[in-house]
């Protein structure tokens, strides 16, 4: 079963529809659900790192998610979902992420010609090949909307980068987890390809 985790952090319709159109039948799961039947888990999210962190650690979902991640089954984080893979985040004060990937999340620095939030289409410079990116050419555009970006401690976890005033990771991956700063579900043909690839991925790199 392909599942989308609903932590009340934003609208799930786009990701639901994108998976459905790709020929799969996703189900929405919440923090109280058992994930033992889940083959692929999508962790979307829009909002505030600190609030999400609180939400996660106030429930037992942190343990459920860490347990799922340790099982080797594919896990996809989108936007805030991906940022929560990191050890810590600075939005709204320092708080803990899930610590699946080493690093933190910092605000994109606003400067001349660089307005924050970063909203719109921008390209992803793919550095490392990954099964979920099969068939995606280098320098294709994806849809972004965010003010914070991740910073990875280990270079090998950075699969692709984007430049917006600064260069930041836009796709990160480690073992059976992969995270996207952009929204594949809103990124037309290339985004849909990523989603379809993820749904067919066995979690191995």
């Amino acid at each position, binding site marked *: 079963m392909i599942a989308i985790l609903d932590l009340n952090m934003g609208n799930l319709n786009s990701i639901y529809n994108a998976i*459905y*159109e*790709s*020929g799969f039948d996703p189900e929405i799961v919440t923090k109280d659900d058992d994930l033992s039947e889940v083959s692929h888990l999508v962790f979307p999210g829009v909002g505030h790192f600190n609030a999400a962190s609180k939400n996660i650690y106030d429930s037992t979902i942190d343990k459920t998610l860490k347990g799922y991640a340790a099982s080797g089954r594919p896990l996809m984080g989108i936007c805030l979902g991906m940022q929560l893979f990191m050890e810590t985040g600075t939005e709204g004060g320092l708080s803990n992420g899930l610590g699946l990937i080493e690093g933190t999340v910092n605000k994109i620095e606003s400067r001349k010609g660089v307005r924050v939030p970063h909203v719109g289409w921008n390209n992803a410079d793919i550095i490392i090949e990954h099964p979920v990116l099969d068939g995606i*050419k280098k320098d294709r555009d994806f849809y972004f909307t965010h003010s914070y970006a991740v910073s990875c401690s280990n270079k090998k976890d950075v699969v692709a980068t984007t430049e917006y005033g600064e260069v930041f990771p836009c796709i990160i991956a480690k073992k059976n987890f992969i995270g996207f700063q952009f929204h594949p579900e809103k990124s037309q*043909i290339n985004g849909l390809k990523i989603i*379809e690839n993820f749904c067919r991925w066995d979690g191995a790199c």
Partner: protein
Amino acid sequence: MLKRCNKCGLPETYETIEFNNEGVCNICTQNVYKREKIDWDSREAMFGDIIEEYRGKYDYDCIVPFSGGKDSTYTLWKLVTHYKVKPLVVQFNHGFMRPTLNENNIKTFKKLGVDVVSFTPNWKIVKRLMLEALVRKGDFCWHCHTGIFSYPMHIAIKYNVPLIIWGEPSSEYTAYYDYKDDEIEQVDETRFNRFVNLGITAEDMYGMIKDDTDGLDVRDLNPYTYPKLRDLKKLGYRSICLGSYIPWNVKKQSELIQNELGWKGDQVEGMPWDVYPYEKIECSMQGVRDYIKYLKRGYGRVTQMTALDLRNGVMDKEVADRLIEEYEGKKPRSLELFLGYLGISEDEFNKVVAKTVVAPFKPDFDSNQWCEKTWDFDQWYKEDNTKIKENKGA
């Protein structure tokens, strides 16, 4: 005077054309790329791998959309004899199949030993669609473009056969897709919407004709509707052209099917029959299509065919110019039949076409030179054109 490619002679009114500094068009430059830069051996190996991936797993190994022209006949021959696949042949009957084509098809199916599904859509609807597409786009073939490319996809879903193999890639003729960037053309909804359907979806078409078409049912448009992406994805579909994996060679392939299958060419209105007996033999309205193209864009099928030969270096420019001068732009006998189907006069036809002319070409509607009748012209389906009769009566 239209600007023309220095190499192949295609004019500036040709779809997707661009010229480089040497005055050579993009169709020619991508053809050089096709011949020199593509590793065809590895492409062919890729195709072999694709065939093996699907072999024996479904009711059929693949679907082959089939018109009976040289390209689909060659594709079917190659798949059955060389790759030994078990295909389901899908035929969409546009309504204008000719006697030689039907004989060819029978021979091909019997000799190769294949299962065939044939579909003929409602003629009354086809006539209405032809009129609407002619008026809106100056291209009456919408029902054929959309039906040919969407109907086999519906069959793929119904029969649970995910691999669909077409023949010639569009990059042979236009630059909607090219051979560069190692881009392999997928025959999918993106391509369908990019140029196949002339920018008119079946839903659009229904809206355009529903108010003045008696008894029209929304389901009448189903054969022209591209299937839902989800259904195709669920099937795990893959829709590709054989010509993306082996270098397409029309002349060689036509000879081969003549020898191997007894396939026969035919006379096509407005064409030099001795030079091009193998091209577009599948439709009795081809002459009208080519005539409209000439009125809109200032070139016809002779230019298109000689362009291919000039590009491939198998014809001299003088020969091409002579053929174009002698054959192009003449009025086909089939025009009268066509006007009969649509129930319009030639004057009305000219007025519609005049609105779709591609600048800077300026057509001459008063030139009344006729093409020679083809041998089977008198067997082609006719309908009374009351409008023409009324005009004559008056």
